[in-house]
Structure formats: C-alpha cells, structure tokens
C-alpha cells in the first residue's frame, strides 16, 4: 500500500477536481432552486409489495401465532403432548422469519419487532429476562398488560424457544414443581406473540392503514413505503451476512461460535437463514423485478437458497471444521453479491434515496 506524504494518485486527482470547482463554482449562477428530482410513479410497486408480500405474510404470522397461543392454552389446561407445542413453535417461527425483514409499518411502532424476537442476544439478555419472569410469584395471574411491562428480551420467540427447547427447561416444563409456572410463562409469551401479530396484521389492512392510504392515491405515501421497505431489504443483508453468518463463523474455525446461531436450540438456524434469503428474493422481485438489473440479484439469492437446502438443521457446528466452513462461505459469498448488487441498483431503479445513515453512517 502506498502512503506518500503528498497523497496518492487518486487523491491528487480528486484534489484537482476540487480546485477546478473552486474557480468556477463561485461565479454567479442563475439556475433556480435545488429541489430533489421527482421520483417515478411508485404507487403500483407499493401496492404490489403490500398485497403480495406484506399482507399475506402478516396474516400467516397472525394465524400461526394464534394457533400457538391456543396450543399453549391446551397444554397448560390438559397437559397435551409437548410435540404440539414444538409444531406450533416451528410454524410461528417460520412465519416470523418470512417477515422479520420488515421494520416499516405497524411492526415498527413501539418495540413490537423486539417483542416478537430478541436476536442477536447480547449479555444473556434472554436468559436473564426468562429467569426474572420465572421468579414472579403469580405468573398464572399476570395480565398481558403486566407482562408487556417486563423485559422485551423475555417476551418473544427467543424466550419461548429457550423455555421449550433448552433441555433443562423442557424437562421442567413437563414434570416437577415448576411445570405449572413454566407453562404459565409460555402461555404469556405465546399470548403476547399472538396479540402483536394480530394487531399488526389488522393495522396493515385497516381502513386507515398503510394499504388504504395507498389506494387514496397519495404519491408521498407510496414513496415513503417503497423507500422504507427498500431500506429494510438492504438492511437484511447486514443482518444475515454480518450477524447470522460472519459472527458465527468467526475469522477461523478456532474463533467460530456455533452457540450464537439464531434458533440453534430448536435446530432451525438453517431454516431461518433460508427464509431470510427467500424474503429478500421476493421483495427484490416485487420492488424491481421488471428491471433487467434484478436478474443477477435474484440469481445470487437463488443460489444462496439452494445452498441452504444442503445444510443440516443447525448450521452452527459447520463453522468448526474446514469443509463446513467452505459450505457456509459459499452462502456468504452469495449474500455479499446480492448485497453489493442491491446497494448499487435498487435505489437507482426505484429513484429513491435510502436511509444511508443506517446503511453507512459515520
């Protein structure tokens, strides 16, 4: 690397450009105003995203979360087969993975997104929240409103997974003196998930909700929705690439941390990864699918999705050995390619400027 005191060639070129600007930019110009260029018509794009992506996925989430709440209710009342809880968890977790990409809209109000799932988990936040919850004297009598005031780390799928799939917790849920209390905790969490999912689904389709506002023909609303959802799309690559893959793989097998993989207790870390990529693919198709620029992004995501098919249910242990790391590196490569291509083309195709502070702050 070259570090001359006077700067590199590229540096010098840029400096000359500034010099030229200095000379000419101070001349009087009579060109009026600096208003932003008008964006293209985003109304049909926004409607398509809402109708084909947002509404059906939140509806699925609401349905699955309600079924999970009912499963916990039955389990607590009748001591039904715990496999029913497992199944209900998988369904809800899948539905959440399919829409967690979205922060825009009703899910972004308050801390709903964090209350649905708390990942990445830092400083054992979920464990601490669950321990505090289980220390409560009267969980069976705790109201949903009181539960909502407890730590958000203990309110969502991450805590429910811990309660249901962690071997010690699973044992204590089915037998022993704490079973009823733990069941009540699970029911509180599942009820909260169902409530939030139901509210978000209803609010999206309400007469004064985001979809209705699009139908009213307000271009500013369409632009805001497309801009925010496109920002969410580009942000998912950071979550998947930097957190779900890079942080687990570490720089070497010795530095790998498979225990941090999302959903590893329920053996669905690979599933979560695949559903994120699938959501990114579908959003890309809906946002810019008519542009030729979409094809290479979709191809990279398709390749990534196919590669995740070959993973074991929990990919974390693969990070510990060379062949497994190579498998994960291939997926990471596709994620990076999709990210780089998307950063370069999605805003340009849509004619919007995305939230660059969250993508590239200083």
């Amino acid at each position, binding site marked *: 690397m070259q570090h001359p005191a006077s700067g590199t060639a590229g540096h010098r070129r840029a400096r000359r*450009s500034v010099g030229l600007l200095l000379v000419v930019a101070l001349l009087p110009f*009579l060109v009026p105003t*600096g208003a932003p260029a008008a964006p293209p018509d985003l109304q049909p794009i926004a409607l398509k995203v809402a109708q084909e992506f947002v509404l059906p996925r939140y509806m699925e989430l609401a349905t699955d979360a309600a079924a999970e709440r009912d499963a916990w209710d039955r389990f607590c009342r009748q001591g039904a087969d715990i496999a029913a809880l497992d199944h209900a968890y998988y369904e809800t977790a899948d539905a959440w993975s399919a829409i967690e990409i979205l922060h825009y809209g009703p899910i972004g109000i308050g801390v709903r997104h964090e209350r649905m799932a708390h990942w990445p988990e830092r400083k054992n936040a979920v464990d601490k929240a669950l321990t505090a919850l289980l220390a409560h004297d009267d969980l069976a009598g705790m109201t949903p409103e009181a539960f909502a005031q407890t730590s958000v780390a203990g309110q969502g799928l991450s805590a429910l997974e811990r309660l249901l799939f962690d071997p010690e917790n699973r044992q204590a849920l089915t037998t022993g003196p704490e079973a009823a209390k733990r069941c009540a905790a699970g029911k509180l969490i599942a009820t909260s998930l169902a409530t939030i999912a139901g509210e978000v689904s209803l609010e999206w389709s309400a007469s004064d909700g985001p979809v209705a506002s699009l139908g009213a023909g307000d271009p500013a609303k369409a632009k805001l929705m497309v801009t925010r959802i496109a920002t969410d799309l580009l942000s998912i690559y950071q979550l998947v690439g930097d957190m779900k893959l890079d*942080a687990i793989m570490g720089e070497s097998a010795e530095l790998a941390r498979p225990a941090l993989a999302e959903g590893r207790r329920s053996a669905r870390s690979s599933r979560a990864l695949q559903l994120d990529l699938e959501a990114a693919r579908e959003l890309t198709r809906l946002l810019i699918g008519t542009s030729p620029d979409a094809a290479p992004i979709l191809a990279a995501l398709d390749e990534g999705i196919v590669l995740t098919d070959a993973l074991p249910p929990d990919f974390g242990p693969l990070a510990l050995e060379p062949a497994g790391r190579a498998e994960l590196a291939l997926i990471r490569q596709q994620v990076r390619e999709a990210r780089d291509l998307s950063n370069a083309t999605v805003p340009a195709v849509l004619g*919007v400027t995305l939230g660059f502070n969250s993508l590239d702050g200083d």
Partner: protein
Amino acid sequence: MAIDRRRFLIGAGAALGAAFAPRRGNADASSAASLLYVGACADAAGGYWVAGFDRAGVLSFATALPGRGHDILLHPDGDELLVFARRPGLWFVRIGREKGELRQIVEAAAGRHFYGHGAFSPDGKRLYASENLIATGDGLLGIYDATDGYRRLGEQPSFGIGPHDLAYLPGTDRMVIANGGIRTHPDTGREILNPDSMAPSLVTVRPATGELLNEVDFGPALRTLSIRHLAAATDGTVAFGCQSQGDPFDLPPLVGLLDPDGKARFLDMPETDLGALANYVGSIELDRDGTVVAATSPHGGMVAYWDRPSGRYLGRRAMSDVCGVAPTAVAREFMLTSGNSGVELSPVAAEALHPLAAGLADWSWDNHLIAV
C-alpha cells in the same frame, strides 16, 4: 473521492432565500418559529446538498455541495456556516447563514484530509478542523485563519488517531477532541486499517498553545469503542457518543459524560434498550437548557434520552434511520432528521413524534443537524 462536477455547477448558485432570526438556543419560546435547522442531505437523484428549514417545515435554502456533507458549524459572529465534507473529506465550504449562498470552498492541505468536523475559537478568529495526516495516520487539528479566507496557518497533534468531533468548553480556551481511534486511508475509503490496535481517547487541549491538558481512555476492554461525537454544556460537561467496532454480540456502553474535572463516566440504560441502539450512536446533542442528553442510533432506528443532572435514563423513541438531532428553542425538545423518514419533532416527555411538512421527506437527511 468522486465529485460530480457537472451536477455541482448546476446547483452551486441555487439557494432559496428566506429570512430568519439569528438566535441559537434562545430561552424565549417565542423564538421557536425563527430558529433555523440546517443539515446535509441528498436528493433522489443522488445529488448532495445542505439545506435549512424552520419549525414549520418550510425550506429556507438548499445549496448544492461538491459531495456528501457531514457536520455544519456556525461562526460565532452568526453570519455564516461551514459545511464539512464527510470523511475522508477534501473540502469544507462557507455558506451564508440566511440564504445559504456559497461563498468559498476550502480544500484540504496536501497529504491531509478532513474528518468531517471542526470548531471555532471563542473569538471566531480561528477554525480548528479534525484532520488525518495520510502518510502516517496521525490525528491533527488543522488551524485556519477565519479572518483571512480560511488560510491554513498550520497544524498541531490531536493526541490520538482518527480525531472526529471537536467541542470547545463554553467560556474557556479549552477544547475536547474525540479521537475515534480508527486509522483509515483515502485509498481504502472508510476501511478500518487498525482493527487490532484501535486507540480511542477523549482529550482536552488548549488549542492556542497546543498543550495536552487531559486524556481519558476507557482501557483495553473498550479498545474497540470508537468515541465519535460530542456535545458541550455550559457548565463544562461534555456528552459523548460512541460506536463499537468490536464483537457485534458484545454490549458496550455507548453514551457518557466527561465531567468538568476531566473524569468520564457512562450513562446507564436498560440492557435491552442499549441493545436496541445496535452498538452505534450517530449523533449526540443536549437540549436548549443542557439538561437532557439525546443520542441517536440510525442502525437501531432509535433516539434515547437521559436527564443529564441525575444521569437518569428517560426512555427511547423509534424513528427509522434517525441520526440528525438538534435542540429546539423549547426546553426538553429535539428536532430529529432521518435518511428515509423526513423530519420529526420529539418532546422528550411524549412518546409520540410529530412529523414536519411532508416535503422535507423528499430529502434524505444525513448524519448531523444544527439549530442556528
């Protein structure tokens, strides 16, 4: 750095004028309407601007920039603003405070680049800019004569790597420097060249003499916590905001206070709320009276508030891509800007944010906002 010369030439003379009263932080709430908020921003076509608007959301001016801007600085005389290029920056520009007309472009000295921030001496005669000596990565304060077309007078060490924000302690001749501890090079853009040897520090200097008066570092456990932005209160306390470059699964504190006696402490907040800041604070500010600290996290889409005298955490509010924050003329209230959600007013006591005119959302607002 790529500069779109054509676009800049088209926009260089473009500024929409409107008058506003030159009072910053006036305790009189009746001045609220006349305070101007100025931030760097981008349009949908990818052009970079600096724009000013009032509390009603009315745009006062929009002036094209040679590239992406970062912080804005008000000259103590109140007549003009400086807009710094985002790091690694090769320019800052002078613009008129009222109409935003371009007055001068000042280039970085050979072998140096700007880091995006600066500070005026209390008498307004000197400008100090945070700079990088590219060849060695040493942090510098570039010294400029504000009475003579910002002629470069020289430089002095920042006593650290990667100096970013600077803040004079009000009513004194002392300045606090946030040395981010990150070494970069223009050839590799914003890539961190010293991830294993970061050395962030908060130093206090006397710029007139170049003396190092105080230095605070957070020790090896927080070596990857880059100290980035500052906000000074009139009693000499400085709030600082940090960005973690370390393990994303760690949860380091991000906001603290440097007391007038030179000791630093972090402000507490619930761990789940700290997690929501996503290890990243983009801007930090104090309200009109200096009693509330606001820290924004565009990565987390959150702004968090603390009561400064007691250190008590006051809660957080969600706003997508929020980063710019400035005090309004009303106590315990902030103006917030976003890269994708426009501009909103946030009374600290209220959960709800209040959007300003929808037209401001046509712009993508960048890192910082100031009230002038």
